[in-house]
């Protein structure tokens, strides 16, 4: 059982070990959906939401797996249950809250099989977080993702007005900015944490 406090777990996932900029999880949406600020924010919210679902799912699946001593099925069980849970939530959201669905709906199927989601589930299992710690961890990771993707989107919106040489346009430029953001976030490593 991990003994870290809830606040530390949250802060650790939020900035010190930021999922995107320090652990390289969820790079695809970070590069792909960071063109506009409002889309980036919706994407971040949807990811946080799915992280929360998958964190809760993973906690209970792991309990079952440990109970029956079949941990070698962990990966298959996680991915199958998380994918179907997200599908279920998407369907109920479509029925009960069309406004929310319009804001987040298109992103949900995209992020079901995202490394950040599965990574979160695996990490919380490795570190043996209990239920509340898992929830804190998923909020921290989701918040960290929102911070990273919104910083990137803001910078890219500004960049549209800049005079970038033709060969550097697109992915190369985005990666360089990502590198600088990552350099900045290294500063948080001084706060400790594993």
């Amino acid at each position, binding site marked *: 059982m991990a003994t870290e406090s809830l606040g530390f777990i949250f802060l650790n996932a939020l900035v010190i070990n930021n999922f995107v900029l320090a652990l390289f999880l969820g790079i695809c949406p970070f590069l792909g959906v960071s063109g506009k600020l409002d889309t980036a924010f919706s994407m971040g919210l949807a990811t946080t939401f799915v992280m929360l679902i998958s964190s809760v799912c993973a906690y209970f699946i792991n309990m079952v797996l440990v109970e029956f001593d079949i941990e070698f099925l962990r*990966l298959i069980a996680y991915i199958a249950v998380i994918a179907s849970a997200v599908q279920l939530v998407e369907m109920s959201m479509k029925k009960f809250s069309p406004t929310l669905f319009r804001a987040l709906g298109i992103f949900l199927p995209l992020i079901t099989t995202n490394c950040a989601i*599965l990574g979160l589930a695996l990490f919380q299992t490795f570190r043996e977080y209990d239920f509340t710690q898992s929830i804190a961890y998923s909020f921290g990771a989701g918040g960290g993702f929102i911070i990273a993707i919104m910083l990137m989107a803001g910078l890219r919106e500004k960049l549209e007005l800049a005079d970038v040489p033709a060969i550097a346009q697109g992915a190369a430029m985005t990666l360089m900015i990502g590198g600088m953001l990552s350099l900045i976030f290294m500063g948080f490593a001084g706060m400790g944490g594993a």
Partner: protein
Amino acid sequence: MNSKPRTKETPLSMDDFLKGVWEENPVFVMLLGMCPVLAVTNSTINALAMGVATTFVLVCSSILISLLRHSIPKQVRIATYIIIIATFVTIVDYVIQAISLDLYNALGAFIQLIVVNCIILSRAESYASKNRISKSVVSALGMGLGFTIALLCLGTVREILGAGTLLGFPLFGTNFEPWVVMILPPGGFFVLGSWLLIFALIKQRKTQHETQHKTLHKIKIEESSHGH
């Protein structure tokens, strides 16, 4: 044999293999599967191991999906693919753990995260589910090799600059001050960005050369028609 009408299938050619290596390189051209590319390339050996592991999963899942392509129902195909891929990843995970615990610890969760690598799922969906086994295998091998080469491109540069070594052997002697940042996360972004810049430059040169060639050709034709 299956009773379904055969769609016209082109014969197996070298192009299927080479496409994945160069023309449609998953990392440098299609920008797929970026997470492991950035995360595990802090040394050459990690990059190589990750490339081999991904290629294995890619080839095995392509074989199985191509074999089962007529019996998988359309509606649940993605779920089926993911389960098949996850099975092979679990195998790889345990094999690496058995071979070298150091390597297993260095790669961390990224072995298990091969499951969500978009390259594998996109190959399954767009190629293996539509083509016969031999073609799927050749294409998967090409893609895997292209991915491994890309990982090695990053891994070697980052290890040489960041630690002054190649595969663990020191290169520069004791006076070399390693660029530690290259091994840390920002280095991954910078090196991949630089590679993309280099490839963009090559492409630009090539298209410039071609357009020049074309205009020269046009002028020549015009001149010759004027002469007559």
